[in-house]
Every structure is written in structure tokens, then in C-alpha cells.
């Protein structure tokens, strides 16, 4: 079986494979797994996979389908072959993540206070101050520990050169951590013997770390803070995760209608009267939080919440206005933020990015469109995007005109070849592209559990790992 997988890997994916070296050897951390896989009767994996499906359905680890009527919900495909990261490599990742998220929090504090980085000319002021997600209401507001982003999900990929790159910082309401936790539970249940072969770093304490982080963000002077998770409701696609985290932390899962603001404090309606709320882990985007302050048509929000927040009577995680630091227009500056605030060189690299607002970058990109990926600054989910190598001449020419019309709306990056990992698909085991989303918690200090969520593109050759577009997930192991 091993040789088949190797052949498949070599044939299909010339880039970096997590399990096999280019010469065909198995990489150190994967050796025991490869031997175990080779000895495994082939039907056992099929049977285990079926068992996993059943368990996921029963436990209800599903992805709500909007407008669902039947009580049937979709599963996010779970792959039974784990992704393994060596302890040494994780140390590097952890160091880089800690550094990056710290700098991003310093940046957020700065732009809502003294704006030193803007005055120093490191980032053009108008790019920050006119940004859609820049919230004037946050100016001058002092947050506990000066932390804005308590929960960050940083997307990391490994390129063909074998190096890790940060692809995106998610600083608003990143999701996926419940799958990380459930995937581990599932693997331990399905293949306990594998955990005898490896010393896998635990992740199960994430809800505890999250609760500590949230409690640490409570308004000053609150002794035993009451924490809640605020969800848009059961029809939100990530509702499972909201409910799961609330349950795991032992806190209430609230909707906006459960909350009210009275005399500058936030309360929830309970069967025994109003109860004070000190910390809101909100999974609702900024514009919907408070109809009095933001979108007046929002029914997901709590009227008066922003006022209570500005009085310092309630904490929001993440803070309002973090989105200014995590989109594609700000991404190219993150290495500079690290140098500016921490006086350090970035441990984790950015993907090289051309900002088409700069004439030099624009000229280069227009000359090299067939080999680049061009993205809209505000776009997401693969919309408004040109993938040079797979586009026709006509498509490229049309896109060239759109760039020329509004260059500052675009950035460009080289086409990455995401690393692959053997994955169980219809045809058997084959290499599929993947990324990694570790979750970084910032409270009194920065904490994370080893690993994160590995997302895998199940279509052959596909680079799209999003669960909304047929991506799956793998358990992620950091091993000694």
C-alpha cells in the first residue's frame, strides 16, 4: 500500500508532500503512520470511515444548511489520515504566530490611540483611517491588557519550497476550532492504537484556555465575570460551533433577544430575572452588533451595546474594529508591523504581495498576469479573483482592464502550490492539498494549543479548502 501511495503522490503532485520526500522516502514524523497504514487491511479504513460518518451524525457535528427543513444537516467530510507536524516545526510556528498576533494587537491599539505607525509613515494613514472596518467609536477606548483580538485564526500554507507562509490573518470571528476538537476525539475513538505509536500533543484543553482568555478580558474590577457566547442563532452555518463552545465552557449561549442594556450595563433575561453579563464572546460581525450604533436594520444586535461597551461595563471578544487589520490591503504591512512594534524580524513569512496602488507593482503585475493570482482587496471566498495560470487569454485581458480602471482595489501574489498530504478519497488514498489554521488566544498572555485545524481540498488538484466548497478536515498532530 505504501508504494501505491508513493506512486500516486509522485504522479499527481510534483509539489511538497507532507508525508513523502521527493525521492520517495517517508518523512520522519510520518514513518510510524506509514507502516501502520501499510499493515492495515484496506477494508478496515473504509469501515472506520463509515463509523466516523455515523458518529459525526449522531453527535450532531454538522454544518447547518441554510433553510434546512428536514432536520438533515450536512457533514463536513472528515479524513481519517492525520496530518503530522514535528514538535520542532511547531515550535517555530508557535513562535511566529505569537509574534504576529502580538504585533497585530499592538497595531490595533496604536491606530485607535496615538497612531505612531501612521505618523512614522510605515503605513499610509488614509489606507487605515478610511478603511471600512476602521471604527471611529473605538478611538481612545482602553481595553484590558490592550488586547483587541482575543481569538485569532491564522491561515498558514506550506509552499512547494517546503516553507510555511501566512496566507491570511482572521481577526474577526474565526471559526473551525470545534472541528479541531471533534476530529481529535474521533481519531482517538476510531484508532486508539495510533495514539500508542505517537506521543500526540493534546488539544482538548482549548475550551478551558478560551474561557480563561475571555475571563481575562473582563472589565476591570469584576471579580467573577459572567461570560456568554452570542450567536446569530440556529440558522447560522457555524451554529454548531457556537453551541459546542458554550457547552464546553459551561456558559450560556445567547441570542441578541436574550440581552438588554439597562443603565449602561448588559443583562440577560433568565427565568429568575435579569442577570449581569460581563464578557460577550460574540460570533456576530461588527455591523450587526448594535442597531443603534451600526446597521439600524440588524435584528441580530443588542440596542445600546456599544454604549455599554464604551463605558467599559462589558467586554467584547473580539473587540469592535479588528477587521481593519486582517484584510488583504493591510496584510502586506504585517511584517513591517512586527519590525516597528517588536523590533524583531518576522519568524513566519508573508506570501509575496504586490499592491497595485504602487505604480511599480502595477507595472510588474500587468506584465506577468498569466503567472500570478490577482485578488480584490475586499473580496473573499474566491470572488473577484484571477488565477493567471488557469485563465484564458481573453479572461486575462478582461481582468487587465478592470485592474487599470481601479488599481488600488487589487493585490497580486505568486501562484502557490500548497503542500499535499495522503487523503482517503473515492479512488483510495491520494495526495490532496491542505492548509492549517492554528487558533491563537490573547488574554493576559498569548496561548495556543499545539496544531490547529487542517483543511483539505478533496477534489484532485483543487486548492480550495473551504468547507462551504467541498473541503474536508483532518486531525492535526504535533508529535515529539
Amino acid at each position, binding site marked *: 500500500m505504501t508504494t501505491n501511495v508513493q506512486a500516486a503522490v509522485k504522479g499527481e503532485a510534483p509539489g511538497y508532500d507532507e508525508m513523502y520526500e521527493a525521492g520517495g522516502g517517508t518523512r520522519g514524523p510520518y514513518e510510524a503512520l506509514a507502516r501502520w497504514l501499510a499493515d492495515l487491511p484496506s477494508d478496515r479504513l473504509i469501515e472506520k470511515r463509515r463509523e466516523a460518518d455515523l458518529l459525526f451524525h449522531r453527535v*450532531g457535528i454538522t454544518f447547518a444548511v441554510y433553510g434546512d427543513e*428536514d*432536520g438533515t444537516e450536512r457533514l463536513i467530510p472528515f479524513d481519517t489520515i492525520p496530518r503530522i507536524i514535528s514538535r520542532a516545526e511547531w515550535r517555530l510556528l508557535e513562535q511566529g504566530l505569537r509574534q504576529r498576533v502580538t504585533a497585530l494587537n499592538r497595531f490595533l491599539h496604536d491606530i485607535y490611540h496615538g497612531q505612531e505607525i501612521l505618523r512614522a509613515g510605515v503605513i499610509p494613514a488614509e489606507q487605515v483611517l478610511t478603511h471600512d472596518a476602521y471604527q471611529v467609536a473605538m478611538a481612545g477606548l482602553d481595553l484590558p491588557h490592550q488586547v483587541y483580538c482575543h481569538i485569532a485564526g491564522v491561515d498558514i500554507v506550506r509552499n512547494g519550497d517546503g516553507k510555511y507562509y501566512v496566507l491570511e490573518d482572521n481577526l474577526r470571528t474565526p471559526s473551525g476550532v470545534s472541528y479541531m476538537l471533534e476530529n481529535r476525539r474521533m481519531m482517538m475513538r476510531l484508532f486508539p492504537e495510533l495514539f500508542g505509536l505517537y506521543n500526540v500533543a493534546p488539544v482538548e484543553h482549548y475550551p478551558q484556555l478560551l474561557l480563561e482568555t475571555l475571563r481575562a478580558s473582563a472589565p476591570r474590577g469584576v471579580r467573577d465575570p459572567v461570560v456568554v457566547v452570542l450567536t446569530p442563532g440556529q440558522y447560522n452555518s457555524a451554529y454548531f460551533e457556537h453551541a459546542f463552545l458554550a*457547552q464546553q465552557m459551561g456558559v450560556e*449561549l445567547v*441570542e441578541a433577544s*436574550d440581552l438588554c442594556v439597562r443603565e449602561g450595563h448588559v443583562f440577560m433575561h433568565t*427565568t*429568575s*430575572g435579569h442577570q449581569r453579563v460581563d464578557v460577550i464572546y460574540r460570533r456576530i460581525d461588527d455591523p450587526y452588533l448594535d442597531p443603534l450604533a451600526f446597521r439600524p436594520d440588524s435584528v441580530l444586535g443588542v440596542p445600546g451595546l456599544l454604549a455599554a461597551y464604551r463605558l467599559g461595563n462589558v467586554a467584547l471578544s473580539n473587540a469592535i474594529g479588528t477587521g481593519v487589520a486582517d484584510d488583504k490591503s493591510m496584510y502586506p504591512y504585517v511584517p513591517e508591523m512586527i519590525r516597528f512594534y517588536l523590533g524583531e524580524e518576522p519568524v513566519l513569512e508573508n506570501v509575496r504581495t504586490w499592491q497595485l496602488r504602487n505604480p511599480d507593482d502595477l507595472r510588474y503585475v500587468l506584465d506577468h498576469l498569466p503567472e500570478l493570482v490577482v485578488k480584490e482587496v475586499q473580496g473573499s471566498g474566491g470572488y473577484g479573483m484571477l488565477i493567471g495560470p488557469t485563465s484564458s487569454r481573453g479572461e486575462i485581458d478582461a481582468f487587465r482592464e478592470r485592474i487599470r480602471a481601479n488599481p488600488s482595489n487589487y493585490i497580486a501574489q505568486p501562484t502557490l502550490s500548497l503542500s499535499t498530504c495522503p487523503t482517503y478519497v473515492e479512488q483510495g488514498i491520494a495526495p490532496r492539498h491542505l492548509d492549517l489554521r492554528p487558533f491563537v488566544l490573547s488574554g493576559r498572555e498569548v496561548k495556543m494549543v499545539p496544531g490547529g485545524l487542517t483543511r483539505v481540498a478533496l477534489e484532485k488538484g483543487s486548492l480550495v479548502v473551504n468547507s462551504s466548497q467541498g473541503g474536508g478536515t483532518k486531525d492535526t498532530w504535533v508529535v515529539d
Partner: protein
Amino acid sequence: MLSRVGDRIFWMSRFMERAENTARILGVTSNVVLCSTPETQEQNLLAPLSITGTTDEYFERHDRISLPALIDFIGLDPGNPSSIYTCLKLARDNAHAVRWQITSEMWETLNAAWIEMRSFRRESVTGPDATRFFDWVKDRSHLFRGVTYGTIMRGEAFNFSRLGTFLERADNTARILDVKYHILLPRVEDVGGALDYYQWTALLRSLSAFETYRGIYRDQIYPIKVAELLILDSRMPRSLAACMEEVHHAIARVHGQSDQPAKRLAAVLQARLVHGDIEEIFSGGLHEYLTDFLTDVNELGQRVQRAYLVTL
């Protein structure tokens, strides 16, 4: 507990209980109709509509009353807000909204019932197999109540589930009694005739009280004894006395703020049943008694909502 969550649990339990009682009413109706005279047949067919308060809705859709149309309307019609179909849907929807605050067994029981409900074909339910459908509904309700009792922590979720179940049952038993007595009472002096015998046993059976009646009274079936059993005997689990005892216990366990109006009324209603006398009830008029009781139970339901479940 969040008021919204309490409210969902309360209504989840009410709708499941309502589905069961509706199935009981339909079950007994299809039995009684088989041995009715032409004059009483129409009355018997109209009774379920009167009990569920849907007579007008029925005749908006149907020109005349017939058993298959009745079963279709009360059992399966998604457009009828009190059909069994609608009750099961609402029970499931309420459970879905709080599936993380109830046990997974409770959620799975209601979800499975709803999925199965949707698979019933109308023809097969309104035909000779109707009884199987009614039994299935009763079984789902028994299962759900048992699963709830056997799995949920004894806390506010449990209390509100019990409150919902027994308030609903008290309401339903009173309605069944009231309507059936209307049909049966004019013929009291004929008690003992074969036809009445079937009518009375059907009523008792619809409330799972036939064997109990026989066991307690070891006598032929007298209306006043039937009423005594179904109103005042707290050993009989569908009687008004038993329901109000459960309601009273459940509400006493709830920790609330400004909930005295609700708790007081629950205590008063229970005390009245404990100390009630069937002769007295009859001399004041059974129909009047039941009408007052229904008003009180309705008021209690509203006080429970106001005290605990409304988010203002």
C-alpha cells in the same frame, strides 16, 4: 436558565403532549363512529373539532363532515395549526432551537418522530390503518416523556418541561370531558344500553382510564363516577387532580422573581381539586365547572409565561 430556552422547552413539551391527546381524541372518535346511530354519528364526528376549537377552519376546507376528512384535517393537515402534524413539527422546531440545552436523546427522539411523520402517506392514515397511526403518535409521546424523565438533569429545564406537559394535559382532559358530556348527558337515564356502554368505555379508553375505572369501582359505568375519576382522583394520571398536582410540584421547584401570582394560582387550583366533591360539582353544573377550570388553566399558563419566559 435563559427565558428563551425555558420558553422553548415549555412549548416543546406542550406540543408533544397535545399531539398525543389529539391522537387519543381521534382514536376514540373513529371507534365510536363505527357503532353510532345516524343521529349521533354527526355529533361524534363534530366533537373533535369542538375539542380542538377548529370547527370553523374545518368547514372552510370541507363541505361536509366525514371520518376520513376529519382524520386528514386533524391528523395530517399542515395548514391546520392544531393538527398532529403541526404539533409534531412545532415540538421538533422548539427542540431544535435548544438542542444543546436538552439531552441528545430528547432531541433525537423528537427529530426522528418528525422525520417519520413526514413520511406518512395521507391515504394510508385516513383509511382502515388509522389506528396504527394514532398508536404511533401515542408511542412517540410516551417515548419522549420517558426519555426526558430518564435523561434530563433535575433543574429548570426539567421543571419547565413538566409544567408544559401537565398544563397541556389538564387542558386537554377538561376539554375532552366537557365535549363528551355534552353528547352523553341527555341520555344518562338510558345508561346501561349497549350503545352508551360503548360511548362511555370509549371515553374512558381515550384517557387510558377504562381498566382503572373497572379496578376502582368494580361496577357498571356511571357518568358521575367517570367524572369523579377523571376530575378528582389524583391516582389517575390523566385526571385534572393528577395534572395539577404535577404542575404545582413543578412550579414550586422553579426559582423565580415576582412569580407569586403564578405560584399562588397553581396552589389554589390544586387545593380545589384535592378538596373537591363530585356531587357539588354536578349540582353547580359540570359544564360550568369545566369552563371555569379551562379559564383558570389558561390564566395559569399566561402567568407562567409572564413570570419566567417572556423576555422584556
